[in-house]
């Protein structure tokens, strides 16, 4: 380990195992190099704090993204981030199989290496779900307390959006103008007007102009791996932190235990590298930013913060209801690779008491050729079908809320172990009539929107399709009996151990969680940077 800022490192050879022991505590040890860990680290080093980041995954060279893109998108060779020997988990969800291995990315940069880029704030009502709608719990902070950090987050990661949308909830404009309407967007605008709904620009962490050393979007339409870095990924802030000389990243290293003494002080993080090296990192503060699943798992393995049996509970996702239909004229969806319009008209209102929040995404995930992929036709019949339907498939998705339940959770599997002999996470998603009713309502709205767009042969999906948004498991609360961390993200019963990320969400609303993760991380980073270390 090459500590650049005066820390001490001792190397011991013990057989083939190398033990790296940092004796002098660093300021902050962060577990996880995704967007939460990256923004905490960047905020800390800007204030001169020394940071070590432990990351279970490896590095993906930005200069290799074109090659990575081609390999993944054109050959279908396995998901580039998956490590079958390491990403073990057990799924006991009764209604469907949940593929955890491909709904998260273990890597320097985390899941932002492979995401859609949607960067939307939670609605103020999401912070007051119990008070406003009678379900879930209220967050221990209000929207207004997080709003300045939302704005900072939009500027840090570079969000392009329409500042007129929900302007009453904003204290400043987006740093970049939104993407223009796609060819199909006017159809959606007319359709929405027909059913009394409004549409708005989707805010994206994609550059609509060159910014922060990254180019503007060139519409490769392959956003899950942006080949040119026009879409934000958290390795941007990891690189910034490393350039400062105050941050050391340990990739391919798995945090396995956190030592917390009887006084509630986290003393050190124990980690093991894939090369067999052992690490003991003493730190004045420990931040667990390892994703909703692994953050909870690490607390469970460390037997920390679970006095009231809340660690791992209240696991949430977003489930989609979606539908497709054929429109008569050329629609040519998906030509930029992502939808540019959405509707929040069904998010709030009286119906939310019974069915939760719903956000419509108009034209989501479509490519012109997709219309042929589900057809059981081959040869010339398929060619004729493709010619007839090319560019005429319209799709709408409803992102729906998953209410927090204690029974929806992760715990430690007693039988299955990881490479190091530690129990793997066991996932158990719990859906109730509330979620089914929400998805059913979402499907009805989707069908209405498609009908209003003049689509025929409308088909809606009834099975749960998840969004790969893991939330809850270490949720914020004012009450140690009902949560894992307090309003400052500090684990109850400890003095210097924090959890940041979607794991800390009290409710998840029906919007993508990344911007809220970023806002929480910036808020925590500022507090730790200003703390008496």
């Amino acid at each position, binding site marked *: 380990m090459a500590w650049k800022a005066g820390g001490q490192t001792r190397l011991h050879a013990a057989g083939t195992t190398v033990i790296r022991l940092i004796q002098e505590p660093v300021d902050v040890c962060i577990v996880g190099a995704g967007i939460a860990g990256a923004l905490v680290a960047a905020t800390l080093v800007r204030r001169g704090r020394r940071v070590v980041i432990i990351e279970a995954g490896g590095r993906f060279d930005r200069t290799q993204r074109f090659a990575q893109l081609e390999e993944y*998108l054109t050959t279908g060779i396995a998901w580039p981030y998956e490590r079958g020997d390491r990403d073990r988990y057990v799924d006991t969800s009764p209604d469907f199989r949940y593929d955890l291995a491909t709904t998260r990315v273990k890597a320097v940069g985390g899941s932002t290496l492979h995401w859609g880029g949607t960067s939307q704030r939670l609605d103020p009502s999401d912070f007051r779900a119990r008070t406003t709608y009678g379900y879930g719990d209220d967050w221990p902070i209000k929207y207004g307390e997080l709003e300045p950090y939302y704005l900072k987050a939009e500027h840090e990661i570079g969000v392009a959006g329409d500042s007129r949308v929900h302007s009453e909830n904003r204290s400043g404009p987006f740093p970049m103008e939104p993407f223009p309407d796609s060819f199909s967007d006017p159809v959606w605008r007319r359709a929405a007007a027909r059913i009394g709904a409004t549409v708005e620009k989707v805010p994206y962490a994609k550059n609509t102009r060159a910014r922060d050393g990254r180019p503007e979007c060139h*519409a490769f339409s392959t956003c899950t791996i942006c080949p040119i870095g026009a879409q934000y990924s958290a390795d941007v802030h990891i690189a910034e932190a490393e350039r400062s000389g105050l941050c050391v990243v340990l990739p391919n290293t798995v945090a396995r235990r956190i030592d917390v003494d009887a006084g509630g002080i986290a003393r050190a993080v124990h980690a093991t590298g894939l090369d067999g090296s052992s690490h003991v990192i003493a730190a004045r503060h420990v931040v667990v930013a390892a994703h909703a699943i692994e953050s909870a798992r690490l607390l469970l393995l460390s037997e920390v913060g679970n006095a009231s049996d809340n660690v791992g509970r209240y696991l949430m996702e977003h489930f989609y209801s979606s539908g497709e239909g054929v429109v008569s004229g050329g629609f040519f969806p998906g030509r*930029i690779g992502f939808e540019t319009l959405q509707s929040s008209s069904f998010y709030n209102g009286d119906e939310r008491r019974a069915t939760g929040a719903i956000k419509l995404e108009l034209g989501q995930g479509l490519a012109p*050729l997709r219309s042929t*992929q589900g057809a059981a036709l081959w*040869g010339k019949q398929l*060619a004729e079908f493709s010619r007839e339907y090319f*560019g005429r498939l319209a799709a709408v998705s409803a992102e729906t809320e998953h209410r927090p339940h204690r029974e929806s959770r992760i715990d430690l599997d007693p039988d299955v172990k990881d490479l190091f002999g530690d129990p793997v996470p066991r996932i158990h998603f719990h859906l109730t009539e509330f979620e089914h009713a929400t998805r059913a309502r979402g499907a009805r709205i989707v069908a209405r929107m498609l009908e209003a767009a003049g689509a025929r042969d409308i088909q809606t999906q009834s099975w749960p399709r998840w969004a790969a948004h893991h939330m809850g498991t270490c949720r914020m609360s004012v009450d140690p009996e009902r949560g894992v961390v307090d309003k400052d993200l500090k684990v109850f019963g400890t003095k210097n151990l924090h959890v940041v990320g979607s794991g800390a969400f009290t409710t998840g609303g029906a919007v993508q969680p990344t911007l809220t993760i970023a806002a929480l991380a910036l808020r925590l980073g500022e507090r730790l940077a200003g703390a008496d270390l």
Partner: protein
Amino acid sequence: MTTHGIERLTACRGRRRILASQKMTSTNPKAVTRRAFIGLAAAASVAAAVAARTLLPGFRQSLADWLNFEDASHRLPSQTELLVVASFAGALAGDRMRDDDVNLLAARLTRIARKSRQQAARYAEVSAFANRRARALQTGATGFLSATDDVREAIVRSAMSEPRSSATARLALLTDDGRARFRIREGIAGHLRELYSKSPAPWRSYGYTGWPGKPADKLDYTRPGPQSSG
């Protein structure tokens, strides 16, 4: 020769074989003695038992096993074999691709075959099947690459046609050809169609030029698609 012509011919050939078979095994009960009949029945029972012992393991083998076979040698298919598979992928979508498109797709197949023993084995099987069928259906054809569009279409149809019943499907698995059809239909056709759809060929047919088929001009998406007259 039209596609339908080939199908009729194939069907007629099959029917002739069935008729001939029926003729050979039909016997006149009056022409055999009771003793001979019992002997014949006993022999038939023994033959049935032997056949069952030989064939039942095949019947019992799960469909997943049939699908997930691997070539233990992990032989990388030859360039010619991969060109056949690439061309076959186009034929699945009714497209006779240009040579450069075939070469590009074959190069991607090569990369996949190097990483996956299972896919390598499947590609080899697709190639062998397509070549075998092409030689059977077209006089003078050396393989799939020299087959006409209609013959290619007939081969695709023969591979992708669903068996009429589960019993027919099971019986088909007893032959190399039947197993190949099953594996192509259930195991690799979707993969090949996906690869084809992510290659330039289909996009070009709709007027797109940029890889992987989306606008090269970043604002082009605000305009109608290239196939549109509007």
